[in-house]
């Protein structure tokens, strides 16, 4: 019980520090790849603190509910993961966080935000099936949906689920809002000054969304780490490698259109996972 409580607290406190730091590394790496010096690695924290100290301005009361919903449900999903709960429940709770974010975008009567929200729906259409399929594939290998069971199973998932792992890399790119999947709101202002779904979020709310992204990043990286959970350090290395991969992909690819994203996420992402699942069923 005490141990579980500690794990939950660690998830709440350590994850954003880790996530913020990773995004700092991301910015530094990206800057170097582009021949710039780049901001200090702690920059995301400076940004968040500054945003938090600003006045709160909204266009409708409901925005507050939806921003908090995004933060709290993403956080809940991470806590559930830390506690070794059911993988599907984690995905659904994470999904509600995403729904809350989209509803937040829709609730502002701004054309920019609504375009962003619609695109965020497309993002969700792209990654949600992949996540569920990954969970089902893991179930087929380990015979259960419980994260605690996956951790203790002793068999590295990556060996039986290499294609599902590739699918999860796509999910990582979408969730990090990286090129070529960064059309709802990009982290770097590659293409636009107005940041899509984020247009009407400012000050503390924007900071909360940023912090939620940190949680999300850690959550998705942790899911990637699960693919080699039998030895924690290998899992950690895999997650880090995936992160660097995402940053590099972001810098070498351009933002593409959403129909392209849906097609590629469904054919490449969902398709690969399906093939992996089919191979597993045949192997039995």
């Amino acid at each position, binding site marked *: 019980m005490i141990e579980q409580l500690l794990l939950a607290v660690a998830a709440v406190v350590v994850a954003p520090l880790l996530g913020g730091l990773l995004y700092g590394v991301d910015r530094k790496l990206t800057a170097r790849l582009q021949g710039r010096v780049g901001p200090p690695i702690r920059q995301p924290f400076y940004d968040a603190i500054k945003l938090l100290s600003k006045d709160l301005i909204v266009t409708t009361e409901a925005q507050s509910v939806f921003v908090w919903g995004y933060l709290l449900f993403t956080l809940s999903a991470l806590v559930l993961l830390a506690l070794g709960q059911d993988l599907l*429940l984690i995905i659904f709770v994470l999904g509600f966080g995403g729904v809350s974010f989209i509803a937040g975008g*829709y609730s502002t009567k701004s054309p920019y935000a609504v375009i962003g929200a619609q695109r965020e729906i497309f993002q969700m259409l792209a990654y949600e099936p992949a996540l*569920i399929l990954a969970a089902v594939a893991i179930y087929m290998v380990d015979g259960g949906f419980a994260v605690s069971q996956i951790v203790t199973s002793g068999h590295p998932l990556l060996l039986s689920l290499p294609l599902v792992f590739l699918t999860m890399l796509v999910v990582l790119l979408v969730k990090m809002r990286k090129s070529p999947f960064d059309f709802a709101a990009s982290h770097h202002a590659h293409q636009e000054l107005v940041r899509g779904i984020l247009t*009407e979020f400012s000050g503390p709310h924007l900071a909360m969304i940023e912090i939620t992204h940190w949680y999300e990043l850690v959550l998705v990286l942790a899911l990637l780490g699960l693919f080699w959970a039998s030895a924690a350090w290998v899992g950690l290395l895999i997650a880090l490698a995936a992160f660097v991969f995402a940053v590099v992909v972001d810098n070498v690819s351009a933002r593409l259109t959403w129909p392209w994203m849906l097609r590629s996420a*469904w054919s490449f992402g969902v398709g690969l996972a399906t093939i992996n699942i089919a191979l597993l069923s045949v192997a039995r």
Partner: protein
Amino acid sequence: MGGQLIAVAVLLPVVAGVLVYLIPSPPLRRVLVIATGAILGITAMVLAGYETLEANLPATGLDWATTLGVADLLLTLLLIYLAVRARHSLASALAALQLVVVGYVEFGLGHRAEIQPTFALDRLSTTLGLIVSIVGSLICVYSLRYMDEHEEHHHVAPSRQPRFFLFMLLFLGAMNGLVFANHLGWLFFFWEITTLCSFVLIGHDDTPLARANAIRALWMNLLGGLAFAGALGLLVVRGHEASLRALVDGSAAGGAALLALSLLTFAGFTKAAQMPFQSWLLGAMVAPTPVSALLHSSAMVKAGVYLVVRLAPGFRGTPLTYAVAFAGAFTFLVAATLALTQTDGKRVLAYSTISNLGLIIACAGINTSLALAAALMLILFHAVSKALLFLSVGSIEHAIGSRDIDAMEGLAQRHPKLAIIAAIGIVSMALPPAGMLLAKWVAIEAGATMPLITVLFALGSAATLGFWARWLGRLFTSPPGAARARVRLGPIYTLTLGPLVAAIGVFSLAAGLIVDRFLEPGMRLYFAGDALSETGVALVALGLPALAVAIKPGQLRPAYMCGENVGGPSSEMFYTAGEQQERVGISSSLCRALFREESIVRWGNPVAILLIVILFGMGYR
């Protein structure tokens, strides 16, 4: 005792309906409908206390077999009359064919042993009974006020409410009979009554569109009815006992029984508006909203899925079960995608219903005990949530004159109570912690044994999140300074919407407990998560709305319009060239180029027909 209770559940609504029809006095109608609903609810709760219950028809001087035969024939004749009067040749032909089959089965084969028991109840039937008697009754009570408003809106005089309530109440009685019957002959009789009731109720407003959609519902359901009658005939000719029990426990095994099962499953598909029969349920929306609520939540479509879920153990382990699972999962995905294309609130709800029914049928096809438990959970939780959603959309339509999602923009300001009720309904449909999500969770866990089905589940599940998120956001769009209205719901609406909201609250906080204690004891074993984590998520969800209050008016600003906002309270306005003022208009429709209803239906229907052909192929061996 048990037998009398069943008699009350089936006959009381019929008697009350006839009384309401014969004595057209509004106060009496009100008393009768509310009293019938209360008694039905209590009866259903007492019945739910029985683990199992069997009952036969009382031994009177009446020859029940002949009575049933005559009743079936009269009912079929009535359907023929209605089809011919509507000058619809296909419906007439189907009804005439059904007359031939029914006549042959009932009178052409000589005397047979009476099937015992006539009624057999278990968890599945009593849960359905609860839905019909409680949710269905609430919808009837809601109609008391709704229909007054409806007739006022449409200037209907003289009132056609006696006829309306006759068929609404008859519907409840027939549904109760349908879910309690073990005798397939009686089940068929109630089945055809629900077809009749839906035909009359869909056509209630008697506009050309209403008549056309009613006749479409009639012919599609008659097609299912004909398949049902065919199954009945097949069983009788081959000397099997025509009862649910015989079909399920394998005593009527063999090729004929399997074909009968596929015919009955097909009948279930038509009634549950599975693709390619989805159009009758969409067309049914021309009817007054309580009819939609009844058709979608507690009656009609639930009869279809009930039959499939009931028969599932009968085709476990046969190829038929894969065909059923695949057809259901296909409808789940396609209907969810179709819901994304719609902006009419009722059509979104309709596609969502069809999609969820597909999920239930897929669960029946997956056919493990876990999957069947998931199906039962989906039936229960969906009934409550969908009833609430339809009734709230009905009230919204009367309040703002439209049921388009775009017209509901900023409803939270104009009619806070209605917006919050609709939001509760939406949240309960797809998002944690509500029972629907728990059920979907179980469905996917159960579906992991059939990976191909899971791919369809995964894609459909994402589309579901998409269309609910869109609607949820639109309800709360509100420009600062918009006028706030306080609408009183009034006693009838409070009395009906209140219990549904309360039920959703209970299902959210204690879904795990309900499943554990009531629906499927022992199913907890399958959950990796514990009840605590689930309730924790529930509490987070329930606490969130309080945050809206924390925003002070001074913190509200109009949305960004490239710096061209017209100042002041009219903040939806922006300046265009020449200082002209334009209003911002935003539609919630999503990318018509990719998700077009017509194109999805154009390839979806042929695939669905192919799947049904496969279904029969699996049944015919």
